[in-house]
C-alpha cells in the first residue's frame, strides 16, 4: 500500500480546549499523573502508485493544515516522520 500519513497538530501556543476537556475528565478515571492532553488529526493518503511525499506535503500545506494555527508531520507509513 502506497500510504502517506499526515499528522496535523495545533501549534503549541494555540489553546486546545478539546484537549483540556479530555485532561479534565481523566481524574474521573482515577488518572492523576497526566499534566496535559492535546488533540490533533491523523490523515491517511493512499496513492495509486508510489507514495509521493512532495505531493503529500503540497496537499498538507494547501488543504490539510492551516499554517496560521497548525503544524504537520508527514511520513510514508512505516518510515520515520518528516517535520514540516
Amino acid at each position: 500500500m502506497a500510504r502517506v500519513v499526515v499528522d496535523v497538530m495545533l501549534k503549541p501556543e494555540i489553546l486546545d480546549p478539546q484537549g483540556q476537556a479530555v485532561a479534565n475528565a481523566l481524574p474521573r478515571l482515577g488518572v492523576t499523573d497526566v499534566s496535559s492532553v492535546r488533540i490533533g488529526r491523523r490523515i491517511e493518503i493512499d496513492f495509486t502508485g508510489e507514495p509521493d511525499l512532495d505531493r503529500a506535503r503540497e496537499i498538507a500545506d494547501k488543504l490539510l493544515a492551516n499554517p496560521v494555527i497548525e503544524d504537520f508531520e508527514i511520513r510514508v507509513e512505516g518510515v520515520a516522520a518528516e517535520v514540516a
Partner: protein
Amino acid sequence: MRIGVVTFPGSLDDGDAARAARIAGAEAVRLWHGDPDLHGVDAVVLPGGFSYGDYLRCGAIARFAPVMESIIDAARGGLPVLGICNGFQVLCEAHLLPGALTRNQHLHFRNRDQWLKVESTNTAWTNGFTAGQEILIPVKNGEGCFVADTKTLDALEAEGRVIARYIKGNPNGSQRDIAGITNEAGNVVGIMPHPEHAVEALTGPSLDGLGFFTSVLRSLAKDGQLAGGQQ
C-alpha cells in the same frame, strides 16, 4: 446595485443575507459555489452556515470552490466582500484576512443577542456607523474564537483594522475581544456575529445589522463602482 450572495453546500443564512441586501435597497443575486461566474455583481456576501459540513476545518474546503477562485481575484482588485460567521472562516482560510477562527474556548455553541462596539468605520461595510457606536446583533457559533499571533494582532490594532469588538461579555474567547476585522484596503470584512439577522423588528433584536448593507451601497455609490466592473 447588485449584491451577490454565495450558496455553498451547507450554507444556512444565504436566504437571510439576500433578504437583508434587498431591505437595504440592493438587488440580491444568488451565486452558486460551483459556478465561477460572478454575474456582474458589485459586492459579495459569504453567508453563515456549515459549508461542506465544516469537514476538515470550517471554511477549508469552501475556499477551493470554483466561485471562490473568482471572488479571491475580484477581492484583491477591490470588490467589496463581507464574510459572516462561516463566511469569515472562509475568508481567513482563503488568506484574504489574517488569523483563524477556532473552537470556542468554553467548547459550547453560543447563540444569543450580542453587544458589539464598532471601531473602524473606514471600510466598505462599516462606513455608515460612527466609531464607538454600540450595536446589538445575534451571535451563533461553535468555532468563533479569533486567534492570531501577537504581531498580527498588534498590526490589526495599529492599522485600525478591528471593525468591531465584543462588549458586555465575550461569547467565544476571541483574542482581544475581536468580533470582526478588515483587510488593508478596507474592502474585505469578516465578522462572526450575524448582521443579516438584525434587519427587521419582527425577527431581530434590533435593526443595527442593516448598517453593514447600507454602508456598502453608500461606498459603491461614492466610488461609482457599478455594473460589475470588478470582473
